[in-house]
């Protein structure tokens, strides 16, 4: 007898979508059920300057951030409407002085809480207080497996050493640990060592996430884009490690979609099973959504409820389902498999978020994008544009890491 565990995949682009199972059982939600998990970007402030940061290029300033009371109210409202998990992210969420209080409030209202952190600001005391407040899981980002590459990518001296230390505290406090490794041309050669590092740190999960090219990463695409040969090797290494480490380390793998044949089911489909909340309180279909101009995203500070914004706001409904599609998506047999890929990528590369994501071979742009990626990877221009509030700073020779 094998138990039926229907996986509802939360934020991951998992096609075995158990969401329907949950939503069909007397959910109060209507056409689009309330997401199971929500990403709370508490702040855009971060001591790291990673060139592939998933935050928008136009960062929210500290002064515009929601207050402790506002976040607490949001957390209560989320729990009330049926959200089960909250991911505290950023920027760097530990840059918020009220993080312990927010985690405590999330626990009090019954939310399962994840901390998605760079870990460089953590102390053992802080982590211990977070555990005490009911934190369920810690995810720490790593930029490499050793300081030379890792600190250069992060643009922060001693970042790697601090992360290793924080990962050890995490396990000492018996908190489950996910190692998140964002991969690109300049660190893919370390992948085998990063996998071993995750095992040595006693992590439960490893996310091997190839960079997705929006916002800051798009600006840094030439410095980050892997070669086709690297991707082939990466897939081989991941598959081998997944088999070898079964039951020891779960490995989730995000492929780079420029080299894919089919686009990713981005966010599980626009406005279908995920939203995030920006530092200033905007409810967004994904963390890059503000890069699409011409869409108005409503805030928790508006006089609408979160559930109303999710169900009724124009921005969420614009690309929901399949009704908005043009050809080749419109008549495509995969239209409900991938929902046309990523709207932000379609906008960034074609100028129209309603076009097919060029990651798809059926997009008239696909061939050109693929060739461009190959050329950029081969050109090997490795200089980074570091992420910051000033709109980015170019890496200078030999001196990185602020």
């Amino acid at each position, binding site marked *: *007898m*094998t*138990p*039926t*565990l*229907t*996986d*509802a*995949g*939360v*934020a*991951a682009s998992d096609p075995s979508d*158990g969401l329907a*199972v*949950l*939503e069909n*059982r*007397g*959910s*109060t*939600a209507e056409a689009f*059920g*309330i997401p*199971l*998990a929500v990403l709370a970007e508490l702040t855009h402030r971060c001591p790291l300057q990673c060139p592939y940061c998933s935050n928008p290029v136009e960062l929210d300033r500290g002064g515009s951030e929601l207050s402790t009371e506002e976040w607490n109210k949001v957390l209560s409202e989320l729990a009330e*409407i*049926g959200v*089960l*998990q909250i991911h505290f992210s950023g920027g760097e969420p530990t840059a918020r002085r009220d993080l312990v209080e927010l985690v405590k409030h999330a626990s009090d209202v*019954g939310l*399962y809480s*994840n901390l998605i952190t760079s870990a460089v600001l953590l102390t053992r005391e802080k982590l211990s207080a977070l555990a005490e407040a009911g934190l*369920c*899981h810690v*995810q720490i980002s790593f930029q490499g497996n050793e300081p030379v590459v890792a600190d250069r990518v992060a643009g922060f001296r001693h970042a790697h050493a601090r992360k290793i230390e924080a990962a050890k505290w995490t*396990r*000492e406090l*018996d*908190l*489950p640990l*996910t190692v998140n490794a964002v991969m690109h041309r300049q660190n893919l050669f370390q992948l085998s060592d990063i996998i071993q590092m995750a095992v040595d740190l*006693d992590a*439960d*999960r490893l996310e091997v996430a190839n960079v997705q090219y929006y916002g800051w990463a798009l600006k840094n695409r030439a410095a980050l884009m892997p070669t086709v040969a690297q991707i082939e090797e990466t897939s081989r290494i991941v598959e081998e490690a997944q088999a070898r480490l079964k*039951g*020891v380390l*779960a490995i*989730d793998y995000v492929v780079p979609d420029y080299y894919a044949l089919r686009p990713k089911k981005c966010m599980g489909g626009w406005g279908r099973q995920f939203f995030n909340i920006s530092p200033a309180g905007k409810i967004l279909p994904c963390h890059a959504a503000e890069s699409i101009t011409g869409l108005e995203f409503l805030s928790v500070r508006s006089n609408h409820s979160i559930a109303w914004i999710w169900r009724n706001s124009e921005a969420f409904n614009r690309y929901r389902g399949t009704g908005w599609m043009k050809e080749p998506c419109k008549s495509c047999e995969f239209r409900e498999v991938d929902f046309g890929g990523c709207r932000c990528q379609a906008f960034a590369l074609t100028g129209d978020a309603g076009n097919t994501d060029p990651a798809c071979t059926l997009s008239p742009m696909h061939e050109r994008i693929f060739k461009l990626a190959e050329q950029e990877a081969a050109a090997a221009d490795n200089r980074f544009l570091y992420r910051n509030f000033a709109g980015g700073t170019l890496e200078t020779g030999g001196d990185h890491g602020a």
Partner: protein
Amino acid sequence: MTGRSRNINVSEASRPVLPRHARLKFDETRQVWVILAPERVLAPDEIAVEVLKLCDGVRSVGQMVDELAAKYLAERGAIATDVIAMLQDLADKGFLTEAREKTS
């Protein structure tokens, strides 16, 4: 290293418990039991829920089988086979761990 053991082998002597990162919870909105885990929400079926509720780290699998056999007036051997297979499957997926020894 911590006392947690991965790759546990479930037997009648095991005292399984959900690991800290896996929470069994009744979802009031959707009226269904769920397991909350990092980046995942799982919907266990009714039988799995019944067994998981007994996994408190105190009861042994043998005791759980006794309870279920009595409750459903079923043959103990068949229940034991089914329950151990189910728990092993959950353990392999990382949703069960062995209760820690209190000696450390």
